[in-house]
């Protein structure tokens, strides 16, 4: 990571850190809420990029782990366990276990088959969620904000915001260390030339499985945070279009870069938020058809914006994060 890349990361994170005070000054609390959601999805996107961008594993079921993390919080909350020190470890463990099991099976395939099997696993969880009548079925269920023994109060928007911020920073630091470690070198090597890696003596399957599990675990945290943000859990969080959205964030922001997925999550969610308004302002009555414009924008970014938003900020050099 050269200086410029670090600069983009630091400036980006500093801007995120400034959102609550700025929102306070301008008396626009809505932005705290909106950017908390953006950061939650940024964590999910960073975790996907670990396997997609660095590991070449095109997982099309990443929203499954958001769902697992969210349902862990929701179900515990349903049974009266609101303690975050219980909820979060359970969410993390559940996501890790599910990712491990899904990875064990799906990583035996490659290419299109891998995409399809990860998609199938996620859809399986989605339909499982729908079938859970006790937990609201497809209507979902309420989730109360986690309690942290009075240390932090998640019902306070600013405190919740900075908790999410801390998790995002942690996710970035962990990812940065991982991809530059020996472990990361193997994962990136397996993406570049898996057969060669095996010929050199790396049993690549177990390293990819470890990366897949770590990514799912990290995404599970995003899920636990999402349940708190939404104060609601539903199977919709696991729908395949959600997995697609996370993937779009990664591609839009810059695959295989550390900060790219954060930029992508910000870009995509801001567009979703404001595109309808802008269109409505431009030509009245068009706002509700915003997806007609969104689609071509995404296609254009994928086709022409190689390297994503991140490439606009930092020169891309080789294989680095």
């Amino acid at each position: 990571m050269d200086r410029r890349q670090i600069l983009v990361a630091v400036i980006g994170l500093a801007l995120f850190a400034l959102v609550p005070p700025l929102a306070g000054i301008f008396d626009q609390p809505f932005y705290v809420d909106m950017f908390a959601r953006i950061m939650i999805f940024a964590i999910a996107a960073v975790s996907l990029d670990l396997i997609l961008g660095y590991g070449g594993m095109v997982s099309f079921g990443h929203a499954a782990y958001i769902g697992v993390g969210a349902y862990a919080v929701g179900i515990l909350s349903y049974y009266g366990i609101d303690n975050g020190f219980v909820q979060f470890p359970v969410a993390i463990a559940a996501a890790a276990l599910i990712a491990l099991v899904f990875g064990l099976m799906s990583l035996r395939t490659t290419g299109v088959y891998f995409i399809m099997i990860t998609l199938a696993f996620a859809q399986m969880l989605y339909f499982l969620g729908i079938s859970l009548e006790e937990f609201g079925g497809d209507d979902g269920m309420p989730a109360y904000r986690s309690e942290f023994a009075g240390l932090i109060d998640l019902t306070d928007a600013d405190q919740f915001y900075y908790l999410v911020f801390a998790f995002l920073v942690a996710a970035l630091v962990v990812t940065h260390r991982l991809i530059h470690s020996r472990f990361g070198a193997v994962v990136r090597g397996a993406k570049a030339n898996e057969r060669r890696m095996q010929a050199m003596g790396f049993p690549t399957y177990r390293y990819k499985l470890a990366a897949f599990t770590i990514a799912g675990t990290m995404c599970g945290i995003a899920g636990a945070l999402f349940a708190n943000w939404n104060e609601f859990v539903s199977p919709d969080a696991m729908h395949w279009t959600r997995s697609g959205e996370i993937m779009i964030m990664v591609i839009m922001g810059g695959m295989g870069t550390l900060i790219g997925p954060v930029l992508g999550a910000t870009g995509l969610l801001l567009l979703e938020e404001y595109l309808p308004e802008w269109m409505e302002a431009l030509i009245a009555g068009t706002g509700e058809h915003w997806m007609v414009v969104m689609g071509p924008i995404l296609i254009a970014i994928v086709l022409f914006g190689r390297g994503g938003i991140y490439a606009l900020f930092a020169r891309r050099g080789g294989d680095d994060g």
Partner: protein
Amino acid sequence: MAEAALRIEGLSKSFGGLVATDNLHLAIESGEIHAIIGPNGAGKTTLVAQLAGELKPNAGQVIFAGRDITRLTMPARAALGLARSYQITSVLLNFTAEDNVALAAQAVAGHSFRFWRPARSDPALRQPAREVLAQIGLAERADTLAANLSHGEQRQLEIAMALATRPSLLLLDEPMAGMGREESGRMVALLESLKGRHTILLIEHDMDAVFALADRITVLVYGRAIATGRPDEIRNNDEVRQAYLGEEAIDA
């Protein structure tokens, strides 16, 4: 006689009706450069694939350093000290030359479930990588992306990656493939310098190189070894001449 570095016993492999390896028996002695030659379709690359663990034989055994490795996976064989290079260049293109070799060094430096310390500043990996690059003559290209190396340099890098795993046996599948005269000259000199230090199984079409380098040569035709011997023995073997070499090689 000491245990051979590699023993192939009754190895057979067929693809449908095509017999690629036909009850092959072969012993590679420790420290020798053993060349395998044969016309196209003789089953040379299929043999390398079976030795490296990429293909499972239908029958027979591969004994490496006294151990039956027939059922071991490719990474497990590599970990035992069996390194290979590919006929079609296979390096990590978006890694620098040094990163490629450092990764090979990492392969034999214990497990890689080390998640925190940066690998790129780890002298335990960079030092051997630089040494091997210097040995192979790529030192000044260390920071160049493998994709930007010339074809000849990529072939050298392949050898460097194989060497960095500190193998006891090198399987080199046509290291001179696609090289110009000057480049293959350098490769011959390089392999010459490895002679005695490593056991090498060399598959090569370049007959000048084979006869210059090999201690012993095995001629493979339709998956069978029709002759094994010193270069002069092979050159004067009637069956070999008939089957493969032709007049041109006899004059060489």
